């Protein structure tokens, strides 16, 4: 994802929010729906369930588009949180209460500069993730996509728990380093 890409998704989502623009939605759908479906399948869903849930996620994207705040998350991150919540329901996992919403002042105008910086940082994070050594990246991916705790990863991979923890720790250190 380039910086321009991040801006593109924000603009498309705005068109969905403000004008119920189906053509803009189609572009968001084509890019994100196959990714969300892959994410759900990696969590153990069969293709039919993943297809249905990915469509649910995209329905939610349309509905909640007016609530998207480009100063708080990239479009990919925002869609990730919607897909994560859908996965919890799909797999009948434990409830996940949300933190209390921050109370902002009276309708603070979204800051263009904040949004731009957030896009740049998101783009940097994507390339930092791609640059991780393969075995570190795989551990991060499993922790997020595999719907597994560290102990479950240990059981399935046969790797000692300590190795898994240290690979994740090293990966986070590298990501932090490339973000600083």
């Amino acid at each position, binding site marked *: *994802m380039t910086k321009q890409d991040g801006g593109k998704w924000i603009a498309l989502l705005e068109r969905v929010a403000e004008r119920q623009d*189906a053509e803009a*939605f189609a572009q968001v*759908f*084509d890019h*994100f*729906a*196959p*990714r*969300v*479906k*892959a*994410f759900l399948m*990696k969590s153990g869903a069969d293709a039919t369930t*993943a297809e249905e849930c*990915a*469509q649910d996620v*995209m*329905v939610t994207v*349309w509905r909640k588009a007016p609530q998207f705040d480009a100063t708080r*998350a*990239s479009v*990919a*991150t*925002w*869609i*990730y*949180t919607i*897909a*994560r*919540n859908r*996965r*919890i329901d799909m797999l009948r996992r*434990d*409830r*996940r*209460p*949300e*933190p*209390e*919403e921050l109370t902002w002042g009276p309708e603070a105008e979204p800051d263009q500069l904040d949004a731009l910086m957030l896009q740049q*940082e*998101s783009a940097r*994070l*994507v390339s*930092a*993730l791609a640059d991780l050594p393969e075995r570190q990246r795989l551990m*991060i*991916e499993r*922790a*997020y*996509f595999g*719907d*597994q*705790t*560290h102990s479950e990863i240990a059981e399935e991979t046969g790797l000692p728990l300590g190795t898994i*923890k240290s690979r*994740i*720790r090293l990966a986070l250190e590298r*990501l932090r380093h490339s973000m600083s």
Partner: protein
Amino acid sequence: MIKHHLNDRLLMAYSAGTLPEAFNLVVATHISMCDECRARLASFDAVGGALIEETAEQAQMETGALAATLARIKSTQPSTRPDAPRPMRDVVLPEPLRAYAGGGVEQIDWRNVGGGVKQAILPTSRHASARLLYIPGGAAVPDHGHRGMELTLVLQGAFADEQDRFGPGDIEIADEDLHHQPVAEPGMACICLAATDAPLKFRALLPRLAQPFLQI
């Protein structure tokens, strides 16, 4: 000033949605009180977003998926009902906790567990248990160790144990290696939210006998 924060492991698992409900509740409550951890959670969510973006593997949607999705959007009208008014803030219990405690701090259904200490078990899934603890100023919670992980979040007052002092918003993350005896500071009673994924191990005889009855 919050000094003891969530660790990476808990934040990552909360972002991924793989924690038991009782731990999710502690994490959500701490984040409601701690701007630093709220920002760190946003970073962990961003890693999830970057993974979605970067993933080489995509699963092709079925033919007509877009049309089907648009049809569903058109056929079901979003509810026009305005969002429910936000409940009044409670001075002690942040919002995620109010839903579990049945309201504010006055509504908590305390049960005495001895020595002036009271507790209220919260309804969560059986993968881990959560409870509110009321420790009068200067009183101690029985000396105990842990089989699994125990999270203790201070909501009001403060306690100290062999590790450190914990004030409002501070979280103590204890595992098998920690045997501790939290003592509330003199003065105001200490109210904590505690969650564990395994029964606690008490050293003294009496609490061990009481354990099965008190569900701690």
